[in-house]
């Protein structure tokens, strides 16, 4: 178990380094190939050449790409000192650098925005797990019934609806039409009820999309498992139907669901870009989208690191949970 964890953590660390290298390449090599100067986009279009050179030197943009990558990693663990053009700025660890656009330090931006996204992802996940799995199990048990067909039609529609449409539609109806919500985000630190109220619409819209997906997968998996020999054995032993379904069948059904949950939750925590754009939530997704549009590399690097970390941790947790749920799985 311990050896397994160590190996997985090592693989995760390698993955993070690869991801950072890829992000650096995307933002340094591709523009270079396309003939765009990053220092220029930082200073503005009408900057004088001396200012551009100053920026280039201060941010280390003139250095070769491998030393920039090295400086970036060193900054995270040991802090980093920027000097050049006369002034010296020290950035304490964990230093993710400064935004090219706003010149703010990146780390506070990340810590400010992370709770918004985390709250969105976790709240929605609870909703979609409860409703998606319940709907899927009921459908599988009452295969071919009116409920089954109705639920599956709703689920198929759900996976065909993009969130940037359902979100707008929900805002038009519940914010503008019925005036149930005012459509503004309230931070959790301001008031719990305010925050909860402002998150209801994003949670429900996001959860609807995923609940549809989970209901479809749960139904398919459950139906397959109900045909297995061990379920017949359990019934033949005279176990109650609740025990057969609730204990024996559910346990195997949860395995693929968990895999999906790990990947989805990881991806969402790293930035629910579409949901946050649709509902104007000040989370990581919104930050990274703006950063991409502004070619603001430090912010992109910071968010990407957190995203990838979230995906990797979520997958690791899922793999460990596997062994708990399914005794056939051995961590080796």
């Amino acid at each position, binding site marked *: 178990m311990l050896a397994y964890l160590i190996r997985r953590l090592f693989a995760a660390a390698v*993955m993070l380094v*690869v*991801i950072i290298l*890829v*992000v650096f390449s*995307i*933002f340094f090599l*591709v*523009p270079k*190939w*396309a*003939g*765009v100067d990053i220092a220029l986009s930082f200073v503005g279009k009408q900057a004088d050449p001396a200012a551009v050179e100053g920026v280039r030197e201060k941010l280390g943009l003139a250095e070769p790409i491998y030393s920039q990558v090295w400086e970036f990693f060193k900054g995270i663990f040991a802090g980093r000192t920027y000097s050049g053009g006369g002034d010296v700025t020290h950035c304490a660890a964990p230093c993710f650098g400064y935004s090219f656009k706003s010149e703010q330090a990146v780390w506070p931006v990340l810590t400010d925005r992370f709770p918004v996204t985390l709250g969105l992802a976790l709240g929605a996940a609870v909703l979609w797990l409860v409703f998606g799995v319940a709907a899927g199990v009921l459908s599988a048990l009452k295969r071919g019934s009116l409920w089954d067909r109705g639920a599956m039609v709703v689920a*198929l*529609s759900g*996976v*065909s*609806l*993009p969130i*940037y*449409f359902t979100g*707008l*539609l929900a*805002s*038009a109806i519940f914010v*503008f039409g019925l005036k149930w919500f005012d459509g503004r985000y309230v931070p959790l630190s301001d008031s719990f009820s305010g925050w909860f109220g402002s998150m209801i619409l994003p949670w429900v819209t996001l959860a609807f999309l995923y609940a549809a997906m989970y209901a479809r997968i749960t139904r398919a998996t459950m139906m397959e498992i109900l045909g297995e020999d061990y379920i017949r054995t359990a019934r033949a032993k005279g176990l109650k139907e609740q025990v057969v379904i609730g204990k024996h069948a559910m346990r195997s059904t949860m395995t693929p669901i968990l895999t999906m949950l790990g*990947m989805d939750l990881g*991806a969402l925590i*790293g*930035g629910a*870009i*579409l949901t946050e*754009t*649709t509902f104007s939530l000040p989370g990581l997704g919104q930050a*990274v*989208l703006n950063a*991409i*549009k502004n*070619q603001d590399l430090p912010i*992109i690097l910071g*968010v*990407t690191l957190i*995203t*990838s970390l979230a*995906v*990797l941790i979520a*997958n690791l947790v899922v793999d460990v949970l596997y062994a708990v749920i399914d005794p056939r799985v051995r961590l080796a």
Partner: protein
Amino acid sequence: MTAPLHEPTAEAAPSAADEAAVATAGVKAVQGRSLGRIAWGRLKRDKLALTGGVVVLVLIVIALLAPVITNLVGQDPNDYHENLIDPLFGTPTGSLGGISGDHLLGVEPVNGRDIFARIVYGAQISLLVGFLSAVVAVILGTVLGILAGFFGGWVDSVISRVMDGLLAFPQLLFIIALVSVMPNSMLGLTGTGVRVFVMILVIGFFGWPYIGRVVRGQTLSLREREYVEAARSLGAGRFYILFKELLPNLVAPIIVYTTMMIPTNILTEAALSFLGVGVKPPTASWGQMLSSAIDYYDSDPMYMVVPGVAIFITVLAFNLFGDGVRDALDPKGSR
């Protein structure tokens, strides 16, 4: 990919599956019906899947004939109709976003461009990116998956690690980043052409591991079958076995995953255009129309509903058809 039928049966109809799929198991069973025929027989009974298929066909025709259709209704997607706009609010005059005999789906706020014409042209972008990126993913996934499964060893290790890595990547983030840093002209393409080309490549690139995994798994089990051994003992070369013996048996799962991938890709394209990194205005695309509609969701809700419903119908039709194809090609299903 339409296979001619060999059996002289009364219900002669074109087979949806590839001729190659014909070679798949069960040929000797029940009166020598091929998998293609069995699948088509099942698909024919599946009303929902057929409806989806018909809608998909209609959409393809609309996309191909976009200039003809817009000419027929006498509207150009880029003509301004400012006379139809309320100068005070910038929203269309008349009810429901300015729907009239001339403008079947109303006009856009501010400049009054015809929404019907823009929806029709938007279908071109959606379907083009949806289909071609799936093609990119299928080619990459099939070739790399079959190589990994067949050769095993370090080839398999490398390809499998790359697939795992790509699946663990925050995909949407990287698609957005890659699409947005691409230059505005390359390979003789400019403007919309280059955006579409880049989206096809990037979406296709991030899609191949899904197909690659399935193909690898199937290849792993197929290569141990007797018929492969038989071919090898008769002196067949590696590439003969790969392409003549294995590939035909992989066609069914590849078709299933392709039909499921197309709607996902259409949604990704719409998302990119919605976020402002996909197709740039004035070229019409559904995602970009939705993003402009954000500012008018209260004053002109029709502007948001029309492209939203267009995306919904398209993706739903592909999903219905894809579900049907999957059920029809499922070897576990009853014949």
